[in-house]
């Protein structure tokens, strides 16, 4: 019991989780603030995706504990996931072409 208690203490104190939680709320607030600025669509998409990827990384690293697991687990899971998602974007630029070809 004392070993696991020590482990729980080492791998993430209450304070650390509170800091992560507050950062996530602040990032969400920033996104909502940006929505009220009526930015151009593509710029908005890029900024929002960047912020969301930061939020997702915080959740994976601290809440999902991946930072404290053996590195082999992260190296097995994450590159595969990123690769598949990047592949999905292969045809994405075509959406811009469709937009520009839309008759007024």
């Amino acid at each position, binding site marked *: *019991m004392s070993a*696991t*208690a020590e*482990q*729980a203490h080492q791998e*993430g104190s*209450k304070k650390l*989780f*509170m800091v992560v*939680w507050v950062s*996530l*709320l602040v990032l*969400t607030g920033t*996104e*909502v603030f*940006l*929505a*009220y600025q*009526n930015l151009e*669509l*593509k710029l*908005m*998409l890029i900024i*929002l*995706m960047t*912020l*969301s990827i930061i*939020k*997702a990384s915080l*959740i*994976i690293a601290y*809440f*999902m*504990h991946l930072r404290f*697991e*053996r590195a*082999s*687990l992260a190296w*097995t*899971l994450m590159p*595969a*996931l990123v690769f*598949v*998602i990047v592949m*999905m*974007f292969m*045809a*994405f630029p*075509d*959406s*811009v072409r*469709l*937009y520009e070809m*839309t008759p007024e």
Partner: protein
Amino acid sequence: MAKEAMSAHGPRHVGAGAAAIESAWEGGGSPYAVSSKKLGMWLFIVSDAITFSALLVAYSYVRVASAAWPRPFESPSIVNATVMTGVLLSSSLTMVMAVRASKLGAVSSTFGWLFATAAGGILFDILHVREWLGLIHEGVRLFSNPWGTPLFGAAFFSLTGLHMTHVTIGVVYLIVVALGFRRSKFSAEDVEVSGLYWHFVDLVWMFIFPLVYLMSAKLG
């Protein structure tokens, strides 16, 4: 581990490397140093993340390609969705507290934190269903809506619907784990594995919220 395998198998093997690999294949090694339950949940999460990514990429594709994409989310909807995001993020915090308490062996506090997390999920669902009913009342259907690109309804309802399903399943999962943990049927590790799932559901919303709501907001 490698040493034991060497001595067990004797002179049949030449290098320590070969013995270490064999012992891993025989179930002796643990390359990730996690239990099979946890690894299983991680693999499920990666495959589920790919499912959601496919839907999100398809949605974004149609969104960028459509000049007449509807922007039905005015300030009250954005405030509602922001509150939903806050609720889900806070439920992730209570989930972390539940995992922590379970590792410390604090049964009643684990039970309490898990129920707080499930309550957050229920609140999220209620707010989301209210949002859906509002849109349906305004005339949004799967393949038609009063404002523009007909696909808006299909994209919105399939994406948020799949997420809502995940939240609902998560609530049931958390309640089952909470009750089982109190009866010592489930261990601290089971609580941790259910936590992985719950954080993942939270993580997916971190992409749905900006892409679906903020990108289709009509503000100011």
